[in-house]
């Protein structure tokens, strides 16, 4: 039920028979039960699903933050499962960007230092022009020397996006990036992510449970019980909400029977 959206080029991220089980023995919990998916360059995918559906696990394993129990993860032409922790970290910081729900920034560092952090740790020479562009795009030019604690939630998320962009990664993973924001701020942040895809041909994969947030994506992938149950071009917020509601009812029915 795979749906192709965007130009038919090499996928930026590809997962093959991805499975992840927590614990062992009779108490083992299967979070992902063999997922196949491709995410192409220049696309914006929303990964949705009820709690416990495995959407966060998909994001963590695909982004190299957690290791799958079996299956493969490809970032471009690199397979992750055999990489050492150090190589994995180096790959993450050069080719993957992250935006989490909250606590995205190091409190000890100011905005500019937080944005430069992956660059500094990788020892790469900062590209001043690009960094200026990034900062301008997220609109934080006047806040560079503030500490995270002095910024609003939306501003903090924009700093996180700037940091994710600083390395020009192949893909940006977002975990509920607007979960802690009010509607208007969330809209600003989502518009920013959208523009990153449209203007810089970036790939964005975003986990969310909010149909409105998902409506900014090109494609919506819905998970339930560790499997992909829907994979469709973004049909609009109302359609998404209906799909989710249907999924929720189905779960209730399964549980009762």
């Amino acid at each position: 039920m795979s749906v192709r959206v965007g130009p038919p080029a090499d996928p930026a991220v590809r997962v093959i028979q991805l499975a992840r089980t927590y614990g062992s023995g009779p108490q083992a919990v299967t979070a992902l039960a063999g997922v196949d998916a491709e995410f192409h360059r220049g696309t914006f995918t929303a990964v949705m699903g009820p709690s416990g559906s495995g959407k966060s696990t998909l994001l963590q394993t695909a982004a190299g933050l957690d290791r799958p129990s079996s299956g493969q993860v490809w970032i471009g032409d690199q397979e992750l499962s055999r990489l050492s922790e150090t190589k994995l970290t180096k790959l993450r910081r050069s080719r993957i960007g992250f935006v989490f729900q909250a606590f995205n920034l190091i409190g000890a560092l100011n905005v500019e230092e937080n944005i430069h952090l992956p660059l500094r740790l990788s020892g790469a020479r900062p590209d001043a022009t690009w960094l200026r562009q990034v900062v301008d795009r997220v609109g934080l030019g006047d806040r560079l020397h503030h500490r995270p604690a002095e910024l609003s939630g939306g501003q903090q998320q924009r700093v996180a996006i700037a940091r994710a962009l600083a390395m020009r990664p192949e893909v940006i993973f977002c975990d509920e990036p607007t979960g802690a924001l009010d509607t208007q701020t969330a809209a600003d942040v989502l518009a920013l992510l959208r523009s990153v895809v449209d203007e810089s041909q970036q790939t964005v994969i975003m986990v969310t449970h909010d149909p409105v947030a998902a409506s900014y994506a090109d494609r919506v992938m819905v998970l339930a019980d560790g499997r992909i149950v829907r994979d469709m071009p973004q049909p609009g917020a109302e359609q998404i909400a209906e799909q989710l509601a249907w999924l929720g009812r189905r779960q209730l029915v399964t549980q009762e029977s």
Partner: protein
Amino acid sequence: MLMLALRMLRHRIGSAVATLVALTCGVMILMSMGVLVESGMRFTPAPQRYAAADILVADRDMTIETTEFGETATVTVDLPTGGSVPVDLADRIGQLPGVAVAAADRSIQAVVPIQDTAQEAVAHGWSSAALTPYRIVDGNRPATTDEVAIDTRLATAAGAQLRPGDQIPVLAAGSERQYRVSGIVDRTAAGDTPAAMFFTDDHAAALSGSPDRAGLIGIVLAPGADSAAVTDEVGRLAAESGVTVHTGDERGKLEQSEALAAATMLIQLGAVFGGYVAGLVMFVVAGTIGLAVRHRRRDLALLRAVAATPGQVRLMIVAEVAQLSIVSAVLGVPAGLWVTDWVHGQLMTRGFIPDGFPLAGGVLSAVAVSAATVLVAVTAGLIAARRTVKIRPTEALGEVAVEPARSSRVRLVAGLIALGGGVTLTMFGTALRGEAALGAALGMLFVFVLSAALLAPWINRYAAQALGPVLRAVWGDSGYLAAANLRANARGMATVLTALVLSVGFGGSIWFLQDNLERESIAQTRDGMLAQHALVSAVGLPATAVADARQVPGVVAATGIRRTSVIVPVMGGVEPVAAQVIDPDGADRALDLSVTEGSLADLRGDAVAMSSLQASTQGADLGDQVEFWLGDGTPVSLRLVAVYERGLAFGDVTLHRGTADGHTPTNLDDQVLISTEPGDAEAVAGLAGLVERYPGSGLIDTGIIGAQLATDLALSAWLNKLLIGVMVGYAALAAANTMIMAALARGRELALLRLVGVTTRQVKRMVHAEQAGLLGTSLLIGGAIAAVTLVSVVRTMTGHLIPYVPPLGWISIIGGTTLLALVTTVAPISALLRTPPVHSIGVKE
């Protein structure tokens, strides 16, 4: 990376300060120990008394071969009484070509009463004058037995102006005689040696008690002699007599044996104690850094997720610690120098080292201590950073960063092994006797503390479970919360438990052990001293004094006592132990050594009496032959004829005069113990006459001996107590550090509790309950360890089953712990509780 580490440090200033305080105090202590060690090592006294001698021949140590576990090793031990060399060796050396003077030197303590003052001097034979050299400035050398040449310092002492031809009284070798001053001599070089006086060689030999032995032989080379060749020749002759040749700097060391012993003591003390403290610093710093790492788990997880490799995170933590340790060295080194100055003064005042013993160096110590501190801190950082490897980057995504509640299996196993070892040692310890039992008891202390440190997380967890019902019963709902917190923080509070167990365990055992030994020694002296009077003298009492005392009407018994040391084999090595030399006649009516087997009356011929501790160390039963060495290194094999209990006060070995004569520096007694009929005024008057017959002597009440002993013991216990105090203080500081850090990190948790409806009062009660649980557990475990150790040691040393613990001891342990709890947790928590909860809940992790 350094910059990043610095920024992170400044952001988490609390934990940085905690680590810094721990490191700085550590540097201060280590620096102080370093300077003491360096002073000991650099101590090279310039020869004064023997400045003109090129070669000295003496016998100051003894080397024996021991066999342990089938391996032969040699052990060298300094002879307690200095050893002696045969006088005829001097004659043979004098025959060698290139030797100008070979003088057998005897040093005899003398007192010269001048103008109502007692001037102390050291008397020698005239031929020793060339060794300094002393030259005649007025008059002549002593030519007859009743002539003496005196130092200008003595001639002008107390305002007197003695001239050749004057008559002076000299108290030496236990009696006073009149001498004619034959001449005044003076040294060519300055120095702080005591004033000298010179008899004829023959008279000095007669006074010394062993005419054919001398303390050492000093050799002055003839001008133009080949020094190396002569030294070789002298060495050959010396080896034949089993004595040793000393040249160069060694000459000065030979001269100041007391200062040299002090130097050795400083080196051992500083090295051993410094080693303990370095270990403690590593443990404490690893603890505070570990806690700091735990507190900022989320930051580290985020770093791991977005950018940092495990190596970089480790490097960052190590860089932080390295920066702190450099700052601590900058602060701690001057503080350490200042402290050393105080310790040095105290050591001199209390007689541990001779007055004027120099403190040397500091630069080398500072460099070594700084390097060691950075190394220790970095190692501690690496240990703490090991934990960060387990931080999963996905933790950055979660709402809360929870540390997995698993502790390492290796740690559990190691802890259980240590515990098993401790229990085994305890069981063995009860079966062992003598010194071996003491060794086992101290080993037990270390092993138990180590096992408590390793098992701390599990102890905390089980204690929380076990204490849960108690806390609930006493503190109600607050107690319930407290038990839950104790369980949850079991790992974080492991450092606190360890530090407190260490403080209470070490403090409670070693500190109180000193009290027990002091108390027992005093009690033994009091109970064992039957004589009411003692005749004492600074220059010694000859055997005639005992005989004279017995003639005094009303005197029931009199016995002469000489204090010396002998060398006994102990567990594969040898060590000096205190011994007394007695005159067995009437000893049983002057002394009660509490003889359990045999009788002191049998102390005749080749016989010895020993304390039960020493007899069991030697594995000797009554009637066995015991082999050991006298103070001058002479091997003896004596039959054990009596075993007594009061060894702490009277010495572990009791010899009779016949065995010791000729093997102690003088054949004189230190005191004569005299028993009289109670309330016999005539006897007291008679004894006053005795004092007049032995000038320089005095009659004292034996009660004073006990009081004097108490003062001496308190003095020598001071150093042990200081060291243990420092160690306990440092461990308490570590506990305090950890608790303050932990308390201040609880803002968010406490705010949450208050927002869900727990009152401030309940929060405080909860904190009190937690403290009671944690500190109670620590006190209990530390106290148990201390009690086991103390009971085994005290039982071995004194035979009492129940050790004495001074009331002040109880108060300071319980009071100190309570104070620690108040200052480190209750106060910071109260401060946290003063901010409205909504402010804290907003604060980002």
